[in-house]
């Protein structure tokens, strides 16, 4: 009897409301709220230590929220953990197998804990796990361990997958395979929540990006909204010598309120706003006035990196 077609259920896949998590004095997650809609790929983007993994671990039921509430597939991840776990797939940031186990053996084991797992062979082939042969887990390369981790996360045919830094340590070809795989999962109705500190990954894959920093949500939107919001373009100015004292402030005044000037470092600036002739003219006039010699003046769309720089006031350090 063929299984009935899968209908993506109603209601958000993940609802986080005012989540606070502390480790001793350190606040890892500071009043975080966001929602993940079903059938989407949602990226949680932020630098290391931003609170991404802690947030995921609360969603997976490993940690109880210290304040605020979290619902996953409509369930309480700590109190209804046994009900939730069979329905989600989890890819840990690292590790996740016996030190002496072989890759395919481990995948088969995780599959055997599920009611209706995916056929192992296609997954093994797809993620190149057959190359791992008889090598014990502890001697696999970082990229091989990541691929096994991803396979273990999806082998149980979950509704929702949490992947923590899925492509860390992968070479570019495998990264693309992984992305394609995540897109196929989404096409088949699986909801995916991924954490990453790779801007290109978030931009390329996600329906929605939540940018977090110091445990707080600093920006949310589709990659398109975030990077092309409000007719904004960017002008990136790099000069040959450090800016004279106070020069960036003067440029700010000259350009007016519709434009933002962010110092990237002492020799480069990011100007965000309407990239029209008048803005460009003002920038060149300012260069002349301050005896600044442009090394390059690039016009382009904002990247997520620029967005991060603007909302946090500092560069994104992965």
């Amino acid at each position, binding site marked *: 009897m063929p299984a009935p077609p899968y209908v993506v259920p109603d209601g958000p896949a993940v609802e986080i409301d005012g989540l606070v998590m502390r480790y001793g004095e350190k606040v890892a997650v500071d009043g975080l709220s966001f929602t993940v809609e079903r059938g989407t790929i949602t990226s949680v983007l932020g630098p290391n230590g931003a609170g991404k993994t802690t947030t995921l671990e609360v969603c997976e039921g490993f940690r109880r929220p210290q304040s605020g509430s979290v619902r996953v597939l409509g369930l309480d991840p700590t109190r209804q953990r046994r009900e939730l776990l069979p329905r989600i797939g989890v890819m840990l940031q690292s590790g*996740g197998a016996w030190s002496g186990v072989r890759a395919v053996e481990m995948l088969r084991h995780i599959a055997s804990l599920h009611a209706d797992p995916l056929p192992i062979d296609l997954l093994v082939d797809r993620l190149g796990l057959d190359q791992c042969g008889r090598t014990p887990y502890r001697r696999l390369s970082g990229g091989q361990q990541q691929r096994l981790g991803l396979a273990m996360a999806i082998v149980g045919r979950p509704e929702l997958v949490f992947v923590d830094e899925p492509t860390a340590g992968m070479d570019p070809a495998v990264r693309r395979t992984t992305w394609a795989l995540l897109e196929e999962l989404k096409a088949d109705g699986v909801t995916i929540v991924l954490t990453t500190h790779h801007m290109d990954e978030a931009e390329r894959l996600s329906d929605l990006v939540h940018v977090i920093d110091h445990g707080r949500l600093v920006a949310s939107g589709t990659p398109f909204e975030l990077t092309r919001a409000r007719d904004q373009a960017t002008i990136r100015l790099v000069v040959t010598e450090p800016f004279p004292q106070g020069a960036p402030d003067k440029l700010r005044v000259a350009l007016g309120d519709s434009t933002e000037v962010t110092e990237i470092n002492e020799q480069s600036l990011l100007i965000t706003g309407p990239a029209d002739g008048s803005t460009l003219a003002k920038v060149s006039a300012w260069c002349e006035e301050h005896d600044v010699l442009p090394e390059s003046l690039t016009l382009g769309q904002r990247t997520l990196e620029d967005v991060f720089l603007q909302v946090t006031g500092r560069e994104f350090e992965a």
Partner: protein
Amino acid sequence: MSGPAGAARQDFTPAPGAAPLGRQIRAQAAMESKLLLRNGEQLLLAVVIPVLALVGGVLAARKLGLDWDEKPVDVLTPGVLALAVMSTSFTSLAIATGFERRYGLLKRLGASPLPRFGLLAGKVIALLGVQVLQGIVIVTVAAILGWRLDGGFAGVAIGVAAALLGTAAFGGLGLALAGALRAEATLAVANLVYLLLMMGGGVVLPRDTYGATGSAVIQFLPSAALGDAMRDGFIDGALNPVAFAVLGVWAVVAGAIASRSFKWE
């Protein structure tokens, strides 16, 4: 990597669910046993050392002309069986669990459909399986050395009951140790404790070997209690109530500590 164009595309349509608990436990027990037996150091601990203790002990007793009420092999075999129980349920279990946490395996299983009870059941079944193999090897060697089972059927039943209770007590201690320390420290401490108990814990050698004071002190150790219970059972077919009570208390206390301190991470 991604196969030739037009290769069968996997259907990822969600169909989530846990396998029946019995199947999960079987799978878990099978993996645990397979990996225990694949590990060379564990096998050394489980089989080679107990067999060496038995053969060495019997030869030494003959040479030194030790004066026990029974033949050396009859005295030593129950103790070596007790040692084998201790090595697997305490040392091997603690070390394996420590490294399972270290490599994130426990965390991974913690995110799988396998409940904590299933994990524990898998481990216990694997331990008992390894112990049966140990028992077969040790009994075979003992028989070659001329061991006679004086305790009869009752003795075997008592010995098996003591081994089970000992497994519970030492297993709880092993899990508690692995929950408290890092993997490397667990490895060191578990091996050290094993060596100390093997030499001075009244497990292989009867307690009276250690003199009256020593004997009185160590009778409350789980190692001596397990050794006493096994010796009284196998040699005399007698149930030693004090030894069983001591083991029972250790099992309850260690089990409580282990279940409180257990962490998936």
